[in-house]
Each structure stands twice: as C-alpha cells, then as structure tokens.
C-alpha cells in the first residue's frame, strides 16, 4: 500500500487541473458570452462538462489513485475562482460536483476500463441537468420550486400541452446529457491510450 501521492503524481494532478482550468477560463468564458446563462441552460453546460470529463478522466489514467479526479477538480475550481471576472459560485459547484461524481463512478475500478470510464462520464455530465435546479434551490431557497411549479402549470395551460409532456421533454434532455457523458468518458479512455502510445514511441 503506497502512502500519499508521489511528487510525479502531484505534478500530474496540477497539470490536468491546469488543463481543465484553462479550458474553463478560456472556452467557458467565450461560450458564456456567446450564449448568456439566462438564454441557454443546455448547450454550454453540456460542452463544458463533456470536455471537463475528457480531461479529468484522462488524468486518472496517469494518476491511477483514488481521489485523483477530486483533486484535479479542486485545483480547477480554485483556478476558476481566481480567474478574470471574479468569483462565480455556479461553475465552481459544477466542477466540484462533476469531479465527485466521476470519482464515484470509478470507485469499483481503480485502473479503469472503457465501461467504467463511460459510466463515470455519464454520471458527471448528468449533473449538468440537476445543476440548474440545485443552484436555483441553493440561491433562492424553497420559494424557487414553488415559482417553478406554478410556471410549468401556467406555461402548459398557455401552450395547450399536457403537463406530463414537460416531464417527457426534461427526460429527453437528461438522456442526451447521459449519452454525451458516456461518449466523453469512453473517448477519454481512448485519448489516454493514444497519449501513452505517443509517449512510449518518443521514448524509443
């Protein structure tokens, strides 16, 4: 049983945290400018969560220790908190929740496999669906759910559709996120394999 992380493992945790942080600070900010959070609750979160999964899970292949993804997420969250534009609570909670879910998805398999990575990615990107509700609940309290339920009822009456259809639409949106997450997880396993092959090739 190895005690603590080695210097190499800490450096790799820092590296993958920096990679995810850089994507959040650059692409994340640009996408939020193009699609403001009030107008878009789907696309930006899905893209950012999938890329985050790809990077963090790739990091797990190079630091095959329990807790490594959580540490990568923690470093990403700190970098995001200190990035230009000030403290944004939403993305920080999102990054931490996604890394925790990825870690949970890999509890059963330390070394990982295509399937384990896909499950891990699926769990992490699914968070994106609940994120908005959790954030609104946290920020506005129980009153938010009262307003949201009333808006769903009024909206369905106004549009002349059954209330259940709204839940069907929400279900489809969750399924799309799950599929994207599973694809990102499987892609991370493939990408890590390609990187290892290239590094081995360069060593020869």
């Amino acid at each position, binding site marked *: 049983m190895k005690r603590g992380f080695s*210097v190499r493992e800490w450096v790799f945790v*820092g590296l993958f945290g920096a990679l995810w942080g850089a994507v959040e600070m650059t692409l994340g900010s640009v996408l939020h400018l193009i699609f403001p959070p009030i107008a878009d609750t789907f696309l930006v979160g899905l893209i950012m969560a999938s890329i985050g999964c790809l990077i963090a899970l790739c990091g797990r292949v190079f630091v095959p220790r329990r807790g490594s993804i959580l540490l990568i997420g923690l470093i990403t969250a700190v*970098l995001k908190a200190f990035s230009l534009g000030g403290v944004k609570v939403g993305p920080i909670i999102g990054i931490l929740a996604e890394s925790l879910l990825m870690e949970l998805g890999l509890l059963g398999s330390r070394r990982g496999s295509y399937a384990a990575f896909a499950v891990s990615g699926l769990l992490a990107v699914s968070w994106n669906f609940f994120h908005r509700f959790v954030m609104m609940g946290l920020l*506005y*309290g129980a009153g938010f759910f009262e307003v949201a339920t009333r808006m769903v009822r009024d909206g369905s009456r106004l549009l002349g559709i059954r209330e259940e259809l709204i839940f069907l639409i929400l279900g489809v949106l969750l399924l799309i996120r799950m599929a994207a997450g599973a694809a990102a997880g499987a892609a991370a396993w493939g990408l890590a394999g*390609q990187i290892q092959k290239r590094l081995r090739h*360069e060593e020869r």
Partner: protein
Amino acid sequence: MRSDRRLVGLRLAATIASLAGLALLKGPGLLVLTAALIVLNLLLNPEGLALFGKLRLWPFLLAPPLIGAAVLGPRDLALGALRLSREGLALGLVMSGRGLCLLLAFQVALGGLSVTRLIGVFHSRGLKGLGFALGVAYNMLATLGEISLTTLYTLRLRGAFRRHPVRAFGLFAVTVVSAALRHAEDIVHAATVRGFDAR
C-alpha cells in the same frame, strides 16, 4: 504570514456563520444578514462590492420579485394598469435576499485572497502536496497557452482542420497533452533534485 493565516480563519468563520444564518433566518432576518455581510465586505474586501456595479447581477436580483408578483398568489396590489400579488412579491424579495446573501458570503470567503496566498495557506495547514500541485497548475497556464497555440498553428498550416476536422481535434488534444506531460516530467525532476517530498 501569521496575520494572513488569522485573516483567512476569520473569513472562513464569517462565511460559515453567514451560511448557518442563511439556513436559519427567514423574512426580515435575511435583510439584517444582508446588511451584516455588506459591512463585512466593506471591512475585509471593499473591492468585492464592485459586484453591485455589474450588469449581470441585476436581472438575477430583480427577476424573482417580478416573476413572483406576476405568477403567485391573489392579485391584490394595483400598480397603474398592473395587478400584482403582494404574497408573490414578498416571496420573490426573500428569494433575492437569499441569493444576494450567498453571493456576499462567497465574496467574504474568497475576495482579497490570491492563488499565491492560498498556496501558503495549504502549506501551513499541512497540505503540502495540494499547495505544490496548485502552484504547478498556476504556473503551467502560460506554458499550456504556448503549447496549444504552437500546435494549433502547426495543424492549421498543414490544412488539417479543413481536410479532417474531427481527426485534427483528436491530434490537437493528443499533441497538447503529451507535450504538457513531457514538460511536467521536467518539473518532477527539478522538484526531486531539490529534495521536495510531498508525502
């Protein structure tokens, strides 16, 4: 350094206290908490109050009372031609107050801190490895930018993005990560020869 640590402790205690207050307080109590958090921000982190000058804050604060007044409860408040609900307006104001308290609490916790200070705090709390990793990440951002730009230009000049866009993105990712890993190996060697041990 010691005063730095004490200040971080104070910020953390204030944030935990405000989160507890947020969970326990209701109605007018939230107004008192909001006022207290504004005063705390003024004392510990005056720049944090620039938050109120940001345009994106106002839709977030104004939407709950407006939506609440329009959709919840009986319409018993007449404002010109508008018929609004007092109950909905009150609920919306409480919701906005809660959101504002949470934002201000986070400002107290993180405002005025910097990555370098946080690394120092991690080291002093015995989290040497985490502080080291954060330092590596922070200092690596510029290198990652350079590596990404060089790779991007190389692939673009070879027409990769036009001919095989999907494959080009895969190649881009593999090249950037493997170059960054090679750079990381240099950092590992440098830390090891200096006798650094994070365990």
